[in-house]
């Protein structure tokens, strides 16, 4: 394993788009060559070395390369976009679109991540230890298919549109979510251990959502069918009793989606 360490040193007054920062692009390059890769700031293309000090050479292949970003980069977007293998470790917070369209490998963000983490991701894993904002694993604007494979784990909270249009893969949220979690999903699994504000599973036509906490405002188009306890989806366990709903009947698709809601935290449902 070859480690490439990037330390933020530049001026991030305007956000930077750094889709070149992937193990695929770094593999086979020396630290010098990596520093010469171009990133965008506004309409200008500038060498990566203007923004980060680079230490260590890339490995022989993507799988063989680990990128460690040693600092906070909330204004650097698109790290790990479309990566196919290897590892990216961000020791602080990450900007928008981290791991967007990712195909394989692993991204770990020790701080928070901005919106659009893992948009339409197809494989690999993203682990965000802090909070994140909107559109985690979601479909791009106008597209009906979001994330289709891999796993996103968020230890903190997410805000809106988690997993919009999900067709496969798993999203596990340790904290809470706000609006439209699992909007229009047709497959895959979303587990929210905390609470949700409203419109969970809106327009879903397939797939599974589990909410361990309380749903403040329940989506109207769901029908209760059963009570099940101690759910298990491969290695993901959800202990406790759950009310099982099917829906969303607001969409004329015969409600093939499944929504589990914790019995203890949602007595009024």
């Amino acid at each position, binding site marked *: 394993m070859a480690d490439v360490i990037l330390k933020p040193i530049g001026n991030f007054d305007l956000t930077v788009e750094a889709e070149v920062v992937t193990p695929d692009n770094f593999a086979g390059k020396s630290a010098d060559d990596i520093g010469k890769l171009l990133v965008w700031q506004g309409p200008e293309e500038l060498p990566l070395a203007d923004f980060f000090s680079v230490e260590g050479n890339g490995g022989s292949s993507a799988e063989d390369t680990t990128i460690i970003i040693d600092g906070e980069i909330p204004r650097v977007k698109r790290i790990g976009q479309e990566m196919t293998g290897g590892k990216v470790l961000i020791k602080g917070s990450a900007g928008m679109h981290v791991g967007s369209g990712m195909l394989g490998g692993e991204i770990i963000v020790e701080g928070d991540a901005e*919106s659009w983490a893992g948009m339409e991701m197809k494989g690999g894993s993203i682990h965000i230890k802090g909070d994140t904002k909107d559109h985690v694993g979601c479909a791009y604007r106008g597209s009906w298919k979001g994330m289709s494979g891999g796993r996103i784990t968020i230890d903190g909270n997410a805000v809106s*549109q988690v997993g919009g249009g999900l067709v496969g893969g798993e999203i596990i949220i340790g904290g809470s979510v706000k609006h439209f979690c699992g909007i229009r999903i047709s497959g895959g699994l979303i587990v929210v251990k905390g609470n949700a504000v409203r419109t969970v599973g809106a327009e879903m036509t397939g797939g599974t959502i589990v909410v361990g906490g309380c749903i403040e405002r329940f989506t109207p188009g769901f029908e209760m069918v059963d009570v099940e306890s101690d759910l298990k989806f491969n290695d993901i366990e959800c202990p406790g009793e759950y009310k099982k709903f099917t829906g969303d009947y607001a969409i004329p698709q015969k409600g093939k989606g499944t929504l589990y809601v914790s019995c203890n935290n949602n007595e009024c449902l």
Partner: protein
Amino acid sequence: MEALLNTGSTIDEGRLAKGGSKYTDDYTKECAVCWMCAEDFTSLGCPEKVAVISRDRKYSVALTTKVTEAMRSGQVFIPRSIWANVVVEPDTFSTGSPRYKGSPVFVEPTDDEILSAEELVTKMYMGGE
């Protein structure tokens, strides 16, 4: 008092804004106004003026009160204008459009002076120039 803020057009707001009269007293009188129901007005102690404060308490704007049956308890309305937008939440849920309808705010009685649109820009946004 906590309330949900609604903002929107009124006919005179439209007339004055489109007629280029944003720096007139009429415009201030029409727009620097917080509408509420009688019940909320009474519970606030029937104040002549209120401060509407953003949820994070960073921004606050002084307005005259207007009691109307058009409002329900717990909801306030400010005509679409620079005063209203001081306390509208800037977060857009990744849609580009801030929360003109339904921003949570605090409403408290106040003695602060009501700023004109021009004073508001210069004092609040341009750092007192």
